């Protein structure tokens, strides 16, 4: 089995490593930025394109392509907005980067800004990270004093400012256009695309890059080692390392960084995380944050996949699925944000879905009718089921509601709230039917709703 490869999390939880500038400099900090600002900006963009880096926020969109789409001819300023609104349930990687290694992130931001001629960056950090916001502000002040941020960086004509902007507890701000609206001081209603692609009409209707915290840290390492060397890490089309955040009912939950695709789901859960809790067996796993479709232990995934230029057959058990963007998509789910939530045989899938639906019912922004009404309806149906009034036809009702949300909304929240219901009902339909015959929850069960 592959060993952990710590690139982004190299110093996380390392004894003696602190989040101040002096410590970062002792570990070679800002050397990459120093090298980068001596070269033409387009070189970094090329390296990132060659690296094949895909965004780590959830959608897995190629980062270099995102930057290429920027409207550089408009004459308007270009903004970088850092998405530090980590809020997909099951995901907790950015928290550690912000708290323990903020300068790694700042260096990634400054390299990205230089490469794209950005003069102003905003870090949109979720409201529930007050300490993280303070740490970042302190780190920016240190970096400014040392001339890594601010006017005439490292003696060059290039200037760039970074400010921290705190959110206020709304999940929808993780959606990039919702985030931009929020940064403009409005309700974070996502914008319709086209025409409002951030690369063209983003913050203040100017071209804008929105990148995740982890993605920007990868940029620093790509600039350091070169795009081709980075592309050798991981697997083709799924390059680099990935931080898996494992939570739920497993012996050793936590964060683990591996080369993308070099590890299977079974290896991660059974070997790295020590398997199920004593006396339990695994039942289901959500592989990429709570909106990813659930995978059921015991199911098989078959079909054809592309290896190099050839199409080859695959036949995987859940445990065999390689942890990369493409393979998880072939298994019918997604790599998403890297948040892996594990459930064992003690969990009722009806109650777990009730918990997830309560989240999406609470977080729908209310702009589009199918999502506003549908997410709240699904929440009420699953809550009613859990509280002793389940009906045999509830599974079909839930599926019906979910099917009418996905694909009918302005942003991807519609899919995010429909996918859990669609996949839970499709894969655990018998459990939903049986729930109707079982009027009360078992008193020993863990309360989820």
């Amino acid at each position, binding site marked *: 089995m592959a060993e952990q490869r710590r690139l982004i999390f190299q110093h996380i939880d390392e004894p003696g490593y602190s989040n101040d500038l002096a410590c970062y400099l002792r570990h070679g900090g800002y050397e990459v930025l120093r090298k980068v600002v001596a070269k033409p900006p387009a070189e970094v963009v090329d390296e990132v394109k060659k690296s094949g880096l895909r965004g780590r926020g959830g959608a897995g969109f190629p980062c270099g392509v995102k930057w290429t789409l920027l409207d550089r001819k408009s004459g308007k300023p270009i903004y970088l907005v850092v998405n530090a609104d980590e809020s997909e349930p099951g995901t907790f990687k950015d*928290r550690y980067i912000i708290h323990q290694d903020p300068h790694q992130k700042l260096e990634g931001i400054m390299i990205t800004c230089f490469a794209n001629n950005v003069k102003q960056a905003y870090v949109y950090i979720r409201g529930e990270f007050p300490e993280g916001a303070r740490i970042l502000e302190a780190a920016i002040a240190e970096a400014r004093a040392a001339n890594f941020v601010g006017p005439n960086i490292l003696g060059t004509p290039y200037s760039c400012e970074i400010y921290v902007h705190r959110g*206020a507890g*709304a999940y929808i701000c993780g959606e990039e256009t919702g985030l931009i609206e929020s940064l403009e001081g409005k309700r974070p209603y996502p914008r319709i695309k086209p025409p409002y692609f951030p690369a063209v009409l983003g913050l203040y209707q100017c071209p804008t890059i929105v990148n995740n915290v982890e993605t920007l840290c990868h940029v620093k390492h790509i600039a350091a080692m070169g795009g081709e060397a980075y592309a050798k890490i991981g697997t083709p089309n799924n390059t680099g390392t990935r931080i898996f955040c494992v939570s739920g009912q497993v012996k050793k939950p936590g964060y683990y960084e591996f080369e993308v695709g070099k590890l299977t789901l079974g290896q991660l859960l059974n070997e790295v995380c020590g398997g199920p809790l004593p006396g339990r067996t695994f039942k289901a796993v959500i592989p990429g944050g709570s909106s990813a479709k659930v995978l059921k232990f015991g199911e098989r995934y078959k079909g054809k996949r592309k290896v190099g230029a050839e199409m080859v057959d695959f036949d995987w058990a859940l445990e065999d699925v390689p942890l990369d963007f493409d393979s998880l998509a072939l298994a019918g789910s997604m790599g998403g944000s890297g948040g892996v939530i594990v*459930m064992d045989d003690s969990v009722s899938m009806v109650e777990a879905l009730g918990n997830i639906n309560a989240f999406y019912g609470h977080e729908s922004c209310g702009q589009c009718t199918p999502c506003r009404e549908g997410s709240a309806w699904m929440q009420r149906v699953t809550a009613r089921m859990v509280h002793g009034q389940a009906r045999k036809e509830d599974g079909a009702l839930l599926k019906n509601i979910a099917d009418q949300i996905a694909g009918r909304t302005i942003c991807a929240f519609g899919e995010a709230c429909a996918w859990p219901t669609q996949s839970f009902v499709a894969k655990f339909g018998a459990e939903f039917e049986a729930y109707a015959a079982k009027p009360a929850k078992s008193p020993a069960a863990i309360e989820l709703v």
Partner: protein
Amino acid sequence: MNLKPETLAKIEEVIPHYPVKRSAALPLLHLVQEDQGYLSNEAIEWIAAKLELQPINILELVTFYPMFRQKPIGRRHIRVCRTLSCALSGAYATCAEFEKQFNTYRGEISPDGEVTIEFVECLASCGTAPVVMVDDQLHEKVDRAKACDLAVKIKAEAAKRK
């Protein structure tokens, strides 16, 4: 509006961070809420005037974003994460323990005015579930016993203040 001088200084510092004043709405709401404990109508109107907006432009933010409140809360704010990973690790029992300890129900102010307990959505520390925030401080792996310890600590701090 009777804001502390340091709050006013921070407000003046933050507005020029943005090319458009309206962008400073969320930062100002945070600063005023931290200063006053909640956002009164007077505060909403004051922020609107400060940013050259209508009060509705600020009110619609207060009613949308979960972290803003229009009523005071207890002296200490206990936020228990409710979302899946925490719930799977016993967050509902953790919340019930806090409610028992302070003789209150989530969303309300405890009879002694000391705490408000709230269920919140994912706090992004799922690997150390269940997690709780007491004011700005995150606490990890808060099972019933640890919730009890935290409650004892909060009560001791309250007694000391008196």
